[in-house]
């Protein structure tokens, strides 16, 4: 699936026009491919992610998913896009603190239509790789933010998607865990032939991107 940015510009803040920015230019992102968006605080990373996932409308220009303009999307279209085409890790993670790690991750398996036994096996494998196997039956509210980030990453990977969109997914992970997570993410995306958009403050040199944008 292609994501086309057509002269998209935020309306809620002033942005710096840079040559390799997404703001104000026409860009097409194709899957599979890795796109890194590096930006300092307040330059619009989360705004961009919110626009991509249909949470904001304070922008000019247009974004098209496979030639379908999001300007014409209704609630049903957004639900379909979110449940089938894009999977996100939000900066604030959007986990449910009252549920266990396992419940949080399996919550959306009804949407994906996955076999529960297969999903459990996959979950335990991912949890093991990400070093949170012993946290699966704990309530999310009792985890550290770094552990929560890993839960959010696993949840995103276990959903249906053609694009993985990650907003500062490693901000609270050490270098080792960030590397492990990134390797798993790229493997899973490759299996699904999916694209990755990762927005981050740091350049994260270990992330090899097909294209880098600066906001």
């Amino acid at each position: 699936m292609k994501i086309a940015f057509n002269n998209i510009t935020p309306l809620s803040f002033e942005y710096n026009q840079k040559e390799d920015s997404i703001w104000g230019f026409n860009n097409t992102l194709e899957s599979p491919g890795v796109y890194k968006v590096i930006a300092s605080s307040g330059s619009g990373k989360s705004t961009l992610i919110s626009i991509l996932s249909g949470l904001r409308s304070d922008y000019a220009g247009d974004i098209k998913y496979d030639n379908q303009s999001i300007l014409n999307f209704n609630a049903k279209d957004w639900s379909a896009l979110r449940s089938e085409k894009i999977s996100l890790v939000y900066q604030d993670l959007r986990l449910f603190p009252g549920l266990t790690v396992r419940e949080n991750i399996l919550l959306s398996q009804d949407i994906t239509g996955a076999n529960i036994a297969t999903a459990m096996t996959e979950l335990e494998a991912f949890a093991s790789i990400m070093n949170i196997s012993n946290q699966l039956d704990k309530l999310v509210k009792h985890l550290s933010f770094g552990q929560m980030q890993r839960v959010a990453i696993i949840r995103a990977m276990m959903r249906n998607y053609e694009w993985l969109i990650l907003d500062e997914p490693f901000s609270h992970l050490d270098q080792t865990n960030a590397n492990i997570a990134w390797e798993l993410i790229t493997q899973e995306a490759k299996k699904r032939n999916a694209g990755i958009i990762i927005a981050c403050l740091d350049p994260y040199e270990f992330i090899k991107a097909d294209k880098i944008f600066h906001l």
Partner: protein
Amino acid sequence: MRSNKQIQKILSSNHKPFQIGLAIVGCLIGFFLILVSVQSILNFKYLFSDAKQGIGSQYMVINKKVNLFSTLNFSKTTFTKKEIDEISTHPSIQKFSAFVGNKFEAEAYLEMNEGPRQARLRTELFLESVDDEFIDIELDKWKWDSTTNEIPVILPTDFINLYNFTYAPSRGLPQISKNTVKLFGFSITIRGNNNEKTYKGNIIGFSDRISSMLVPKSFLDFANNKYGLPGIGSEQSTYRIITAVKPNELSNFQAFLMENNYETNQELLKNGKFVGLMYLFISVIFIIGLIITINAFTGFILYFHLLIYRSRNELDSLLRLGFSHYKLVRNYLFRITLIIIPLVIIALAGLILSQQYLAQLLFKYNFEIPASIHLYSVLAMVSVTAILVFVFFIQIRNEIFKIGLPTKSRD
């Protein structure tokens, strides 16, 4: 769907049902009042429609008011054909008949033998007839046989009461029973159009309904035709009309009578007022029930608005995962259904019990109503509930569609 259970868990963290305890109690009271009022109307309709209960149709004799103008012959007290048509086709009327009066001279003679003395009482008569369906005695003797010399006669009950309790005591005469009167033979002589004939009058009963001396319609038609005097009314002259009015329409019919300046028995009109007041009272109960229910539902809607507001973050997260807005709306609809259905069942159970109690109570007073509740009561309850749940659905849907969408997609 295992996600439903987890969604329920996520959204239940802010759900505190005791906060709507008052709305739940109010809703139950409102439901019960609605059911009671609908069932009461159906009970009354049953009572009024069942002839065995003795409160079926109300019979009214209608005439125009006699005033100075009619006395001076400036205005007529006869009904025109248009007026008769208007009365006979009035929606409150079940049955209708015009009185036919005698258009000939009629006299009654009673021969009394008291020992050696003989007395002959004589009085002029007026005779009337109505359709047989208005006669309130057994009809087997109410037939005129033109080959005999006898005429069946019905006297008003008031007539013998006046005699027994007013005339007889004042004159020191013996009181007489209805059965004794029936044994009296009296002669009726009718005269007119150069003809005269004497018949034997047979009193076959007494009418509580009609205050007139009644003879069979077939006889009066025959006699008017043969003995009718020219100039005493025409064929169309109708001074009095008898109607059977639907009991629940008495107040409507009363309004019609007043509008047209017609007269009838005021006691019956009081019944009409009572029936009207009773329906008004039941309607007020229904409206109060509906208001209480609407208020309770408004309480529910406000509570769920608050619940959605408190759960806004969780709802937003679920929508970001790709759950549809309608799935979340259904979740709230399921919750309100869990509250409402037990209330409907309790209210219906209360109605069933109270209907059984009322049926037993009324049976002691010789009234009969069904011991079970009417299907319409259940349908009324279901309809009110469905409408309110639909309003709830619209309200909640609008609120949830404000979440997790860019402004222009909130439709």
